[in-house]
């Protein structure tokens, strides 16, 4: 797997279960490389579940079970010979609530790279990663200070820096701005535009305006079924599925 190229993901007949509950139904779609795809839909529709299945985070939930194929660089990440630890290094994740490590700012960015055996100049990696998330000016004098002392928005950008420091190809984001104020949200949205040049980004969001602003494609999900998937403009302004139209225009959800 070459970090210089940014691969997409191919989903073929993905079904996800929690015990007896069928959370995602027979879903097939393609996430294009170097695009932002937004997953939208009402609460409980299975979009976060789907997102977590894309880097095998669902494996951590004891009762969950995934069927079907998620193809990354021609290989199904659910194959028996694939270790989820390897998957997550290439397909990183940013969570809803900022969750930096209870360590220094420097260590937050360096840790992931170090455990993955990064051989280059660690200091340079940390600096460039923080610069890429537009956090450098705010933290350059306090790299050895605790990360938890930063504001929520800064913490979330640090979490993104931590993710890109291990040089992934795909970044999964689970409502990354829902715990942030509007200014921090705007900063992250600006950042997404920039990151798109290097990474494939899949973002779950409840914020329709945000999905409209940042995404190239959008997928609308309802009760575990993907109702419509297409270019964001089409989903928002010319939906083919009446359910999509009903959701977009705010009639339910």
């Amino acid at each position: 797997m070459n970090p210089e190229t940014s691969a997409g993901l191919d989903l073929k007949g993905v079904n996800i279960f929690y015990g007896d509950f069928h959370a995602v139904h027979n879903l097939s779609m393609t996430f294009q490389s170097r695009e932002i795809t937004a997953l939208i839909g009402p609460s409980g529709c299975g979009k976060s579940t789907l997102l977590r299945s894309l880097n095998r985070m669902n494996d951590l939930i004891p009762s969950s079970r995934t069927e079907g194929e998620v193809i990354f660089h021609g290989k199904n990440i659910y194959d028996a010979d694939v270790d989820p630890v390897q998957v997550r290094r290439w397909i990183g994740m940013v969570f809803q609530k900022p969750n930096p490590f209870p360590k220094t700012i420097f260590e937050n960015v360096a840790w992931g790279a170090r455990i993955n055996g990064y051989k280059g100049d660690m200091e340079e990696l940390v600096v460039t990663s923080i610069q890429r998330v537009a956090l450098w000016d705010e933290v350059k004098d306090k790299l050895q200070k605790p990360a938890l002392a930063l504001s929520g928005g800064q913490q979330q950008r640090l979490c993104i820096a931590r993710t890109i420091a291990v040089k992934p190809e795909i970044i999964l984001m689970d409502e990354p701005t829902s715990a942030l104020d509007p200014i921090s949200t705007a900063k992250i949205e600006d950042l997404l535009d920039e990151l798109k040049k290097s990474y494939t980004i899949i973002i779950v969001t409840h914020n329709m305006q945000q999905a409209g602003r940042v995404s190239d494609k959008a997928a609308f999900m309802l009760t575990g079924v993907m109702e419509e998937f297409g270019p964001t403009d089409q989903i928002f302004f010319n939906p083919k599925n009446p359910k999509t139209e009903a959701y977009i225009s705010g009639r339910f959800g």
Partner: protein
Amino acid sequence: MSELFVRDNDQVDFAPNVAGRKARAGLWNVIFLAATLVGVLSLVALVTSLLDSCFGYVIVQDAYAWADVATDPTKKLEDLSQTELVTLIRSTAEADLTDLTLGRLKFLEMDRTLEVRTSEDLRSLVRKEILKSEIKKSWSLTESLLQANEIANLQKSKYPEGQLAFRSWLTPNFLTQPQTGGKAETNGLRGAIIGSMWIILIAIVVAFPIGIGSAIYLEEYATNNWLNRLIQTNIYNLAGVPSIIYGMLGLAVFVRLAEPLTSGSLFGVQDVNGRTVFSAGLTLGILILPIIIINAQEALKAIPNSLRYSSYGVGATKWQTVWHHVIPASLDRILTGTVFGISRAIGETAPLVVIGASAFLTLDPSGLFSKFTALPIQIFTWSQMAVPEFKHTAAAAIIVLLVLLLGLNTVAIIFRNRIKQSKDAL
């Protein structure tokens, strides 16, 4: 209290009765305060009764008069020099006038010869071995304070040759002297303190790593299947098993079954059976194991999953997640649980009795394969004695045990707070 801000229709739907609700709240307040006071009072009563027995008047009387023993009766014992004392002791032993025979002297010199001892040491030897000073009667602190006149009169009428003295039973000597048997006043706690420290040390060395390891397995690795649920249920139950059962286990497994190991005969140690410091430490280690496991599990449970996810999210393995993030974040709580374990172990008596603590031990427990005694055993033994003076030594020993317990807890708490501070700084 009259109702304020009352509106007409309010009377129909609500009966606020603020005064009545507050009165009920006040009643509960009083009940809880009373409960707290009862707890505080019983603690105060405990400490007072212990201190009460630790100090008080005693009547000391010599079995042999100084005038009969001394080479020069005009000089007092306190005025003799070191060489004079040595001469006195040797000549007395040779003359065979008192209980100090040559044989007894030889036994006493096995440790150190008279010539190398200090004058103070020799004087106490004279009192103990030649004059046979002994406490004839003793009183508690309250008795000493309230009945001072009666005590003085009693001394004059019944023990005219004795001396009335105010004695503290808790002295530096009491801590450093070994057990001697015989009179209460000559006994010390040295062996019991050393024994207790040894046993706690072994128990912690055994239980801490095993306990933390089990907790990590159960919390981080074990899947929710019937076997792991069975293990978990049993650990909870084991924490509540009466300690004497652990004594039976220690007796069967460590003392009997593993005797070659626990007696040290595997390592060439002879003349000892399995009733050793090692067996006692292992038994108490097993006893506090469930406490440490459960507390460590609670500590691990308190770590939010978001921390684990953030670690997995950058491609960490389970062990890297546990080692770099989960354990450092929970270490202060894990240590708090270990403190509970230590506190439990240091006061345990029943299992040590069962596995065969020595009620009388003059030699210090010096290693894994020594015979042992411990503070609670000593307290138990002394409190069983018919001689009333032993109740003072028992009380003094209880205070030593409590202070030791407080000391160990303080060390652990300081250690824990230091970890917590460095954790909170991040």
